[in-house]
């Protein structure tokens, strides 16, 4: 239990956009932590609308700074564009914790709560791809979120490295990378466009929870599930039917609920001053146990707390997970 428990701290949880299910799950986790820590101040769950994504996040961070909140937890929906606002908040004494997606330059950020090790994500994606395509291998394409999302780009990069570095992946051939901007309609259309453009396509890897079900739906609607598969990151409740009918035999994710929980625990500890944002400091994170702040290996600067682990979902366990 955090030593500062019971102290009132105003806190803001800022998702990439409103309207994406995993962020709601994160909110649930954060609320759970808030109750555990007996913070009487209500947690604000504020997000931008998608058309206003970058400017909206900046606006919310700036307003929160003006209000003088104790901590902001950001899932950054762009690159470094949020950095100036984060730095301004930081300079005013607001604790800035990023989660899910960090600020690439780490500017203005106290610590990043990482869901999983980004290099591990690349390996997990590559492993799933190989498992689905088997030794024969074949062509695959990546359907990502927005073109400059820090987390997805890091995952794609690490996946590419894994593919190159390990000979067992030699049969996998990446033919295209497209960006559906985390919009269901765009992702759906792009999935079909990929199919048309690459007649020998065997697999679509979608490292985004919006992209994966959209791609699966598109393939299902076109009756292509026999020929082309989907994998990537997905929410069990959204992927359930596609896993059961074989469109998406396997996908991975971590618990967004736990991620929200850990982000809150970390931010609260920083805001109450029980923990300092420095290498080696330990956050007592309730039911997730103690977590240590380390250097972030995937970024030049910046600190991170690692949550982990990955859960892999397939026909055997997806139904149970979807019920959660």
């Amino acid at each position, binding site marked *: 239990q955090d030593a500062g428990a019971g102290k009132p701290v105003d806190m803001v949880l800022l998702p990439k956009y409103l309207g994406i299910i995993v962020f709601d799950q994160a909110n649930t986790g954060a609320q759970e932590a808030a109750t555990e820590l007996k913070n009487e101040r209500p947690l604000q769950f504020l997000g931008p609308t998608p058309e206003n994504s970058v400017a909206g996040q900046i606006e919310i961070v700036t307003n929160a700074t003006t209000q003088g909140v104790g901590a902001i937890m950001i899932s950054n929906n762009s690159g470094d564009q949020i950095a100036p606002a984060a730095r301004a908040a930081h300079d005013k004494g607001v604790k800035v914790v990023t989660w899910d997606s960090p600020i690439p330059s780490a500017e203005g950020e106290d610590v990043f709560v990482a869901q999983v090790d980004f290099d591990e994500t690349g390996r997990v994606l590559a492993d799933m791809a190989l498992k689905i395509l088997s030794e024969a291998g074949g062509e695959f394409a990546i359907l990502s979120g927005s073109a400059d999302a820090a987390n997805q780009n890091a995952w794609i990069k690490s996946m590419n490295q894994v593919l190159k570095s390990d000979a067992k992946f030699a049969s996998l051939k990446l033919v295209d990378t497209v960006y559906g901007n985390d919009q*269901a*309609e765009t992702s759906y*259309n792009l999935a079909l466009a990929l199919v048309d453009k690459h007649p020998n396509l065997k697999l679509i890897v979608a490292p985004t929870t919006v992209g994966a079900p959209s791609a699966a739906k598109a393939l299902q609607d076109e009756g292509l599930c026999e020929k082309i598969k989907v994998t990537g990151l997905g929410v069990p409740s959204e992927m359930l039917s596609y896993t059961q009918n074989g469109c998406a035999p396997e996908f991975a994710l971590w618990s967004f609920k736990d991620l929200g929980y850990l982000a809150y625990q970390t931010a609260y500890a920083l805001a109450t001053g029980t923990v300092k944002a420095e290498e080696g400091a330990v956050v007592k994170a309730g039911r997730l146990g103690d977590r240590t702040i380390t250097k972030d290996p995937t970024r030049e600067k910046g600190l991170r707390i690692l949550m982990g682990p990955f859960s892999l979902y397939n026909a055997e366990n997806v139904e149970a997970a979807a019920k959660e």
Partner: protein
Amino acid sequence: MNGLRLRPERVRELSLLAIIAIAVLVFATIIDGYLSPRTFNRIASSVIIIAVVAAGQTLVVLTRNIDLSVGAMVGCVAYFTGALLAANHGLPPVLAIALAVAIGTLMGAVNGALVVFARIPSIIVTLGTMAVFRGLLVEFSGAKSITTANLPSWLVNLPQMTVLSIGSFDVRAMVALALVTIILFQIGMSVLRVGRHFYAVGSNPDAAHFTGLPVRRVIFSAFLLSGAMSGLAGFMTLARFGTITVEAAMGLELESIAAVVVGGVNIFGGAGSIIGATLGAILIGTLEQSLFRLQINQFWLDALLGLLILVAVASDSVLITRLRKFWNEARAKRRRLPAATDTPS
């Protein structure tokens, strides 16, 4: 007198058809396996939603108005219908469609009432309701999304459903639904008396008033029908994409206007047809779907689309003016014959 039956407006539609045909031929020669049922399906399925919305938009534009709220209406309908279906899996399909159309119609009625009874310019009304509808969607949804897992299976499988197979060409149920609706509307516009009232009101509002046409009712119906079409499109969006978030159908307003404009509907009212707007949507859809396959960078599409609109409208304005001049001169020549024999008595 029969030699010149082809009006300039029809020429516009035929030339669009020709351009689409040429485009398809060109793509067929440079893309392997282009001329396939799959291409047909892909273009058809991707075009129908925008075509349905564009049909409603056409009615509004014909009356010298504009509806910028269609995207928000489609999003709202998709979400609310999805929520209803998620709660009542037993809802029969026909009722579900009717519900979607009804929700859309209701929103269209709000637009229409504000334009007709409060006399606010439609661009302002729909700019406002666009924000309000989208905002309400976010409010009511609590920012949660609809997912296929919550939806009844008939709906999830609807996009695959085929109603008619001609050889290897499948006509999907949704494509058929959209086509039938659009064709019914087009027929209605030319067969029903009220159909022509939309043209009259947009062509000359003063004359419409003097002639005793129910101007307000016509404009109101245009918005109502645009809402209804958005409702249908909302249902189709729900069925097709399955996952409905608060941003569903965002930007559709501009796409629908683009289709209408490329389809030769006069943005100042009075001229154009639903078929034209549909052809506009098809042309845009064909280019979008095909250019991607041409190894052309995803990012070039918008730039080309902008160019297409500009070229379409500019050529339209030049071409139609020329044709009309030619047409009038041809008629004047014929007219002069009897007049020439006329000497003052």
